[in-house]
């Protein structure tokens, strides 16, 4: 074990695929479980994780994802993304990993701060009402850095 401890983390979630969102959520939840202060900043397609209309429909990217070891043509077959997502969701449930909407709510309840990126919100024409109520604020990059002061920043 290291002599120095991490007291605070600010985690950026920038991708909108299932495999793009979960790592940041697991890092944030894990930080809170260790008593580490945590902030989550959702930017670009990462906003899907806090978008009321989309957070239940986040899928695994089956096209251009070599990690799946699928033939390239197979990744584009209609429905394959839903199928792979469904299978993965089943495996995750067995490990007690919650679906994204429940997980995000759990992390907010643990005391982590949830923030939406202003530039991305403007770009996608999303406002406060499009986000789940647990989102504390829509903030600029500058405000994010101010919030992250004194801690580590993790980009996912």
């Amino acid at each position, binding site marked *: *074990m290291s002599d120095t401890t991490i007291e605070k983390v600010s985690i950026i979630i920038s991708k909108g695929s299932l495999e793009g969102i979960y790592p940041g959520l*697991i890092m944030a*939840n*894990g930080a*809170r*479980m*260790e*008593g580490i202060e945590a902030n989550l900043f959702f930017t670009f397609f990462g906003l899907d994780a806090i978008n009321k209309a989309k957070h239940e429909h986040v899928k695994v990217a089956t096209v251009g994802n070599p990690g799946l070891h699928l033939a390239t043509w197979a990744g584009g077959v209609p429905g394959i993304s839903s199928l792979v997502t469904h299978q993965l969701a089943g495996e995750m449930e067995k*490990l*007690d*990993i*919650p679906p994204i909407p429940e997980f995000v709510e*759990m992390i907010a*309840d*643990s*005391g982590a701060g949830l923030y939406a990126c202003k530039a991305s919100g403007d770009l996608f024409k999303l406002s406060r009402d499009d986000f789940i109520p647990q989102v504390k604020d829509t903030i600029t990059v500058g405000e994010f850095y101010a919030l992250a002061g004194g801690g580590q920043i993790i980009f996912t």
Partner: protein
Amino acid sequence: MTTITLAGSPIEVDAEGFLLDAQQWNAQIAEEIARENAIEQLTDRHWQVVNFMRDTYLETGSAPSIRSLGKTSGVPIKELYELFPKGPAKLAAKIGGIPKPRGCI
């Protein structure tokens, strides 16, 4: 492994202060570990969580995840973090005399 004195008895703990033998545990030890971890007094709600953690561990061999702690201990996630600000699952396990939970969730 080190041996420390808790509630007047020699107790074996790991490097982070978790009991190595769950059978050496008692309520007085729990109170003492709680105080050392900035929880001055264990309330009924604290005990509800500590007992749930301990019972689950003794029954199944592993401590519950924070998710199931929130769902089935009867204490919701928000309150868990109010009761144990430095990490509910970790602290409740330590106070309950069981090993540190090794799950990521």
